[in-house]
Each structure stands twice: as structure tokens, then as C-alpha cells.
């Protein structure tokens, strides 16, 4: 990871288009258009959020090598989306009001000409029901995004939450 600072980010049109892809993804999520969102993933896509463990500075890892909050294929993402589309996904009744604040978007070339590594920060605001207090998720994301005709597809969404103790009753939303 530490190599990225020496790599020159991709700029211009490609980056703008990749960034818009992230913005359009956020819109789909924040407008609860989960099927539209799912369609932005390649069939071989992987969606993962590692478990974070509170470790001291020199520990080998803080993001668990094998622990996952999410470890989804397109098949299991599809299960989640179909679940949300039933009338019985109580965790989202009433639906969360989410807002994905996507910033610091940097794109890098990869070893594949048609795939880019896109890094971003994503702050999610989530409000439920009549609660006066909102829930926040702060995450760094490293996505692998593949060119698909005029558009793009997620091949890999990797997001790491910035907390070891997640301050939310559940993760019924997507980061």
C-alpha cells in the first residue's frame, strides 16, 4: 500500500468518469435502488469489509487477515438485495436514510489495461426513524473497477471501517 504515494494517479477524463461512477453508485444506494446498485457489479465481483481489531502500533495487522464483516460474492449480494426488496427486512423498516460522502478519489493503473484501482474515503451518515442521533461509518475504500463498454463495473469493493468497536446496532446498509 505504501507504494501508492510514488505512483502517479490517473487524471483527466478517465478519472472523472471513474469518480462519477462512484457518485452514481452512492446515488443508487441513497435512493434505495438496490437492484440498480447490484447491476454495477461484475459477475465475478467480491465485496468485502474486514474485521478490525484494536492492536498496538507494531502489531502485524490491525485488519484481521481472515475475519470479515462482509465477504460477499455477487450471488450473496443478490440475496441481500432480494431480502431488502421483501416486506420483511425489519432492519430497514423504516428504511435508513443514508448519505454517502465520497471524497479523496484517486485512481491508479493496474496490471490490467482495462482495470483501475480507485481509492476513496467514504463517510456514511445514517439516520433511522425519529432518532435525533445519527450513526456514522467512516471508511477507506479500495475498489477495482473494470471498463465495461462505455461504463464501468466493480470487480472488487474493499472497504475498511475506521472503528474496532462499531457504533451501530447493525450493518444493514452498504458502504
Amino acid at each position: 500500500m505504501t507504494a501508492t504515494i510514488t505512483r502517479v494517479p490517473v487524471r483527466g477524463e478517465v478519472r472523472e468518469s471513474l469518480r462519477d461512477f462512484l457518485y452514481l453508485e452512492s446515488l443508487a444506494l441513497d435512493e434505495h435502488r438496490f437492484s440498480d446498485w447490484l447491476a454495477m457489479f461484475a459477475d465475478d465481483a467480491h465485496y468485502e469489509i474486514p474485521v478490525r481489531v484494536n492492536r498496538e502500533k507494531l502489531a502485524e495487522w490491525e485488519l484481521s487477515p481472515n475475519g470479515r464483516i462482509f465477504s460477499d460474492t455477487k450471488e450473496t449480494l443478490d440475496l441481500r438485495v432480494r431480502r431488502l426488496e421483501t416486506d420483511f427486512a425489519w432492519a430497514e423498516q423504516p428504511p435508513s436514510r443514508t448519505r454517502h460522502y465520497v471524497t479523496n478519489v484517486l485512481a491508479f493503473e493496474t496490471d490490467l489495461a482495462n482495470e483501475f484501482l480507485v481509492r476513496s474515503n467514504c463517510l456514511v451518515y445514517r439516520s433511522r426513524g425519529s432518532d435525533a442521533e445519527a450513526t456514522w461509518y467512516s471508511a477507506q475504500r479500495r475498489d477495482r473497477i473494470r471498463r465495461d463498454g462505455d461504463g464501468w463495473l466493480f470487480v472488487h469493493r474493499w472497504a475498511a471501517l475506521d472503528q474496532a468497536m462499531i457504533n451501530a446496532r447493525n450493518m444493514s446498509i452498504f458502504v
Partner: protein
Amino acid sequence: MTQTTLGVDALLDRARTSIPAGRVPIRIFNDQEIFEREQRNVFGKAWCFLAHTSEIPKPGDYVVRSIANNSIIVARDEHGDVRANLNMCRHRGNQMCKSEMGNASHFRCSYHGWVYKNSGELVGVPYFQEGYETKLNRQEWSLINVRTDQYGGLIFGTLDPDAPSLEEYLGGFQFYLDMYLKQSPGGSEVFAPPEHWTAKVNWKICTENFTGDGYHTAVTHQFAVELGYFPSSGSTHYQGWAVNIPGKGHGIGLGHTPGLAPFAGFPDDLVTTIGRSLTPEQMEVFSKTRTAVGSVFPNLSFLIQPFSVKPGEAGVRFCTMRLWHPVGPDQIEMWSWCLVPVDATDEYKQAAYDAYTLAFGQAGTFEQDDFENWTNVTRQAGSSLARDADFPYLMGLDGKVLDDWPGPGEAVSPYVTDRNFRNQWATWLSYMLDEV
């Protein structure tokens, strides 16, 4: 409904007769005074779960866990023994371990530099000569020790030096725990570090649910019925058994689906070998159990069941262990582990873990709906209009205990009953009244 509200003592006193009669005071599920007394009387006396031995396999390994509001270092010392100590420097109270896990032979305090062995013994004091004129009795100032004991890889601690032994405490519930702890001849192990998160939930609601609340499944998790992810249907779902250990508070629900293969979801080689470390009576019970959802009083729960992403397929049998750690009358810190069979292949372990994350764990599709309901229950249970009222725990009030049940404790059928819960809250009450 008048607005005069019973004091806590009167409320608990009334509950002596009301709980066995199937009525549990609503107020115990969200009340500051109840919480404070619980911290002292329940969590100050019971055996509380700390860690699984597979989390600290090597000398020096440690994890940091909690009982009541105490942060506790659970370490394997240089002799290989498990030691638990309050995570507080005896000099001025600094926190010794600042991480959740690690490996260290000694802990050095970052305030004035006192050094302890991982077993808790004070071994280093700066300026011992110049400051203390060598007069400090170091033995007296070791870390505050917490008594521990183990069963089947589970490390428990108690703040009460006079508590009965863990064996007596479990009182036969070990028989059922083996379903989770002996998933293979080599036992079970933790697959990955636990997830943890906070929720505005009273811990008792969670424990109760995991002590065999088969009644909620088809409604709370209706999405799964709808999408075909249940290996049982509404019409058979109430079938099975509920077993509890009277006076101990432990209980388990055993869901049974007629015609389902024994240990459905386990790979064949596990199914053929699993009996090696189990008794014939255990095999009789375990082999007809689809889902086993049970709790060790007060707040450690387990669930094992098969799950498949493809409706109709056997899928894998996954197992979760969870601790509902109370931090307020309406708040818990949730700890969730996945236990896998030691002797299974890496592929199987991974598949079991993946099923766990999809179903339970913070993003689990079942977990999500449970926590949503429990959050709402907790909030409403604080209503002033409900403070003198009871919830009905009337299911199976006249149920007959099975004569021919092969395991310890009292078993009834069907699975859907309030019997386990009545025992649970009666036990809780005896702790609250200091009558254990």
C-alpha cells in the same frame, strides 16, 4: 393504570410468585436501578465468559475482555496457564494493555513504568531505592487477580471468590454445550477475532432469545421464509425440544425437522467421526437436532444450524458464540465469534465462516432483524405506562417434563415454549435477591 410505581425491592418481591406463574415484570428490561443491582449481584457473582482457549494458544498470548465494568487481561503465562487480572496498574490506575490482543511476557506501565509479568506479578518498580527506600512490598501490589475456570475450551471468570465451582455452576449443561464445543473429535476453535459493536439493547432480551425462542423465527426472519432459505416450514417449525437446568438458568432450544439428515450441513467425514468424543446419549440428542440455540446464564449464547445460499441445498453447518455484554440498562457491547470444527478442512472452515457472516455477525441477514426488534423492545420497555405491568410467559405453563429424555435437565416438547425463560428469569431473580 395508576402512576404509582413499585420500588425495585417490591417489584422483585412480587416477581417471586409472578415469574413461576408466567408473568415477568416489563420494567426489568430497561431500568437503571435494575441495571446497577445486576452489575453487583449477577455479574459480580456469576461465572462470566472471558475467552476461548484457541484465542490464546501460545505462552504470552493475551486478549482483553470485560466482566461488568472491569477490563480484564486474559493471558497465557510462561507456564502455559491461563491467568486473568484487572487491566489496571496498581500504582495509579493506568490501563496496562491498550490493545485487544497481543503477545507479551511482561506489561510495562506507560505512566511511571511499573512492570508486571503477564501473570500479574509486580516485578519492576523505578526508583525503588531512591523513592521507596526499598520499603514497598511488591507482592502486595500485583495486578488484581480474577478467578478463572474452564470447560471445553471456554474460559470463564468470576468476581466472587466464594462462588461455587464452574462445574457445579454449569450443572449438567456441559452435555449440550458439547454440540458447539466438540464439533469434531479435536474439538472446536475460533475462526477469526470476534466482531464487536454496540447496540441500544438490554442484554436479557438477547439472552432470552438465544435460550430457545423458536417462536420468533418465522416472523422476525420472515424474509428467509419468503425467499426459501429455511430448512423448516411454519408448520413444522415449532417441533423439537426445550431443555433447561432448573435453578441454574441455562437453557437450550433444539429445533427438529422430521426427515432431515443427522448433522445436516457437516461434511461426511465429520458426520462419521463426530461420535468419537460424544456419549451415546449425546449422539441421540444431537443427531436429531437441526438447530440448537442455547445460553449459559447470564449472557453467553450459542447457535448451530445448517445454512445454504441455494434454497433446498444442505449447505454448511455453522456455529456462532456470542456475548451480550451489558454496559447500561439499554445498551450492550456485542461480541460475536464463529466456532468451527478443528478437524475440518480449511475449505470447510471458510465456508462455515462465510455462512456465519451472511447470516449472523453484524452484517448478518438474520442478526440485523433481531437487533432491530431488540432495540425497539428495549426502548418501549422503559415506558412509564408499562412500569408496573408484566409480559406473559405463559406458553407451556402446564407442559409435562419428558420422562425418557436422555440428557440432563428438564426437557419438554414442543420447542416453542416459555419454559426455559421462566427458569432463566427465576434464576436471575434469585441472584438479584442474593439468594443463590
